[in-house]
């Protein structure tokens, strides 16, 4: 008895396949995770119910979910533009930090005695988010330029650039920007610069609105404009795109700028909406998880929004579960990763079917 893969004559396509596979992956992932509750004498059903209730059916909890989803969404939008254009960018983590740095740079200038002191706070905050986006775009543009002009490998370059960003921020918070005190961090930004909380009783800040606006921009760009069409063509087949008169290099440069800008914006928003200061240890993998949520959303902006909210919600629910019932939040991390791996693996079933039994026997 063997199990092997046999190629389907026609690949499965269409919305139903996606839905069936997704639901199956979620169910199997949660079943696997359910087993992990058992050593703690906890009921998986109660655990999941509490987790989901906390993250999605509780105002304060849902606020945290959307706060967690905000940077994931922005990184996802950047991923959509870059990856569709054939620019396999993994440098979002670095761009995020550089954006956080850029935003803080402006924010600190608005303190008493700074060059921006006295400007209206809303203007300073807007300027800070924009500058975070610009620096993030610049950081990604370095990678884009090295790929387009010199043929460097963007995956490897971006992974290394992430470390440069981590050490740059670390240098700033233990060195020149450090505030007097024990922790390596900058001064706290004045309260009137913070992104305002938009729903009473929650920590949901206005960054979500910026993210959604960015999502609409990316959606229109990729589905309705010539630039988006040319980017997608460049990604699908650069050679035939060039034959068709598309300047692939130029489109990839632009994609790098947009991708980095989105992540930079995410970094600045995280500073002005959540931490309110630049600190060491800001790099927590969001720049990588945003890529995952983009792929879960099939590289479409609406899909990425849904995937980011679900992913962020599970993380928030997991933390709440750990705080309240002492169950390790790592269970949720395992469930999330298992679902994603199952979804990736299920791709093969669109083009192949599983055949059980002896190959010789099936041929006769």
């Amino acid at each position, binding site marked *: 008895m063997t199990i092997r*893969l046999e*190629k389907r004559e026609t690949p499965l396509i269409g919305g139903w396949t996606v839905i069936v596979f997704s639901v199956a992956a979620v169910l199997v992932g949660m079943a696997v995770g359910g087993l*992990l509750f058992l*050593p*703690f004498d906890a009921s998986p059903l109660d655990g999941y119910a509490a987790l989901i209730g906390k993250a999605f059916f509780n105002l304060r909890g849902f606020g945290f979910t959307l706060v967690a989803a905000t940077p994931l969404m922005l990184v996802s939008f950047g991923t959509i533009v870059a990856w569709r254009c054939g620019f*396999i960018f*993994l440098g979002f983590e670095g761009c995020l930090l550089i954006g956080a740095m850029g935003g803080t740079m402006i924010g600190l200038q608005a303190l008493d005695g700074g060059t921006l002191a006295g400007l209206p706070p809303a203007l300073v905050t807007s300027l800070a988010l924009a500058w975070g986006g610009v620096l993030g775009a610049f950081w990604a543009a370095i990678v884009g330029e*090295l790929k387009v002009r*010199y*043929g*460097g*490998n963007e*995956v*490897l*370059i971006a*992974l*290394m*650039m*992430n*470390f*440069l960003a*981590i*050490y*740059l921020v*670390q*240098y700033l918070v*233990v*060195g020149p920007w450090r505030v007097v005190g024990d922790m390596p961090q900058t001064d706290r930004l004045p309260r009137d610069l913070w992104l305002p909380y938009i729903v009473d009783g929650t920590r949901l800040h206005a960054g979500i609105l910026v993210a959604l606006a960015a999502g609409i921009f990316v959606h229109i760009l990729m589905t309705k404009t010539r630039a988006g069409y040319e980017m997608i063509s460049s990604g699908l087949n650069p050679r035939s795109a060039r034959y068709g008169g598309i300047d692939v290099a130029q489109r990839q440069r632009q994609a790098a700028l947009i991708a980095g800008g989105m992540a930079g914006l995410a970094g600045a928003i995280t500073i002005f909406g959540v931490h309110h200061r630049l600190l060491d240890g800001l790099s927590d*993998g969001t720049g*990588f*998880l945003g*890529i*995952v949520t983009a*792929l879960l959303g099939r590289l479409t902006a609406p899909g990425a929004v849904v995937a980011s909210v679900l992913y962020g919600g599970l993380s928030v629910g997991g933390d709440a579960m750990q705080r309240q019932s*002492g169950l*390790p939040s*790592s*269970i*949720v*991390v*395992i469930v*999330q*990763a*298992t679902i*994603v*791996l199952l979804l*990736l*693996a299920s*791709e*093969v079933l669109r083009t192949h079917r599983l055949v059980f039994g002896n190959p010789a026997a099936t041929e006769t």
Partner: protein
Amino acid sequence: MESLLEISFITTWLAASLRLTGPLLLAAIGELYSERAGVLNVGIEGTILFGALASYLIAIWTGNPWAGVAAAAIIGVAVNAFLAWMYVVIKASQVVVGIIFNVLAMGAASYAFRTLMGDIPRIETAPMLPEISVPGLSRIPLIGPSFFEQSIMFYLTLAIAVGSGILLYRTRFGLNLRAVGENPKAAAAAGVNVVRMRVLGVLAFGLGGGLAGAYFVLVQIGLFRDTIVQGRGFIALGIVILARWNPYLAILAAFGFAAMDALPLSLQLLDLGIPSQLLVALPYLLTVLAVSGVFGRSRNPASLMVPYHADR
């Protein structure tokens, strides 16, 4: 007085660098096999973490560090059998599988550690691997104690690196592995089983990554924490690039990264006023330049990250 300080600086720096070199080199050599076969294995962090956890638990339970080393090797290969299946058979995106595998490993290691060790784990030090001092040589002044009084794993690691160089450049297996990473179509036409070679490359990585995890625990720290790897796996990716996918150069590159990593600590002896982050970042900067293509081509294997379809 001045010179005495400088001498003690050099010896502590050398010793610290060599201690840090070992696990980085092991992980890099493993990654080198995988990349030479055409698979960029971003799952490096997760593999090291699994190796570290397995070596810690087994070494404590059996009281024998070598059992821990064996466990790390086995778990490294086992989890990479799964990764190889995803990369080579399913042909899923290598970077995405690697990223999410690292997330899974973080979750699984932290879960397993907590479940097996209880809520407040007793801080129990694992039995460490023995050190070897090479007779005679270890008494060379200045560099002797650093170079010739290292853990037995250090010498094994060097042997693995040199052996890998011979395997890659002097054997048919090595030729086939490199061919599969450069031009799998041509390799297949010449009768090489592309899928099998790529799977073997990933499994070899599992061995190196798992052992690197054991190295962290059984030579360096003696403890397990789920933050034990924290980016060091990605350093190995940098080492592979800087070494131009060559195991011999990887020894130098690993030492270079380790030396820069160790410098800030040792520099506290001398106060030079250079920000330590600048020094630590230096090898990454060199790596970016090395792979940028600006200064000639440090070319990666041509089919790196390109899945192989036999029928296309």
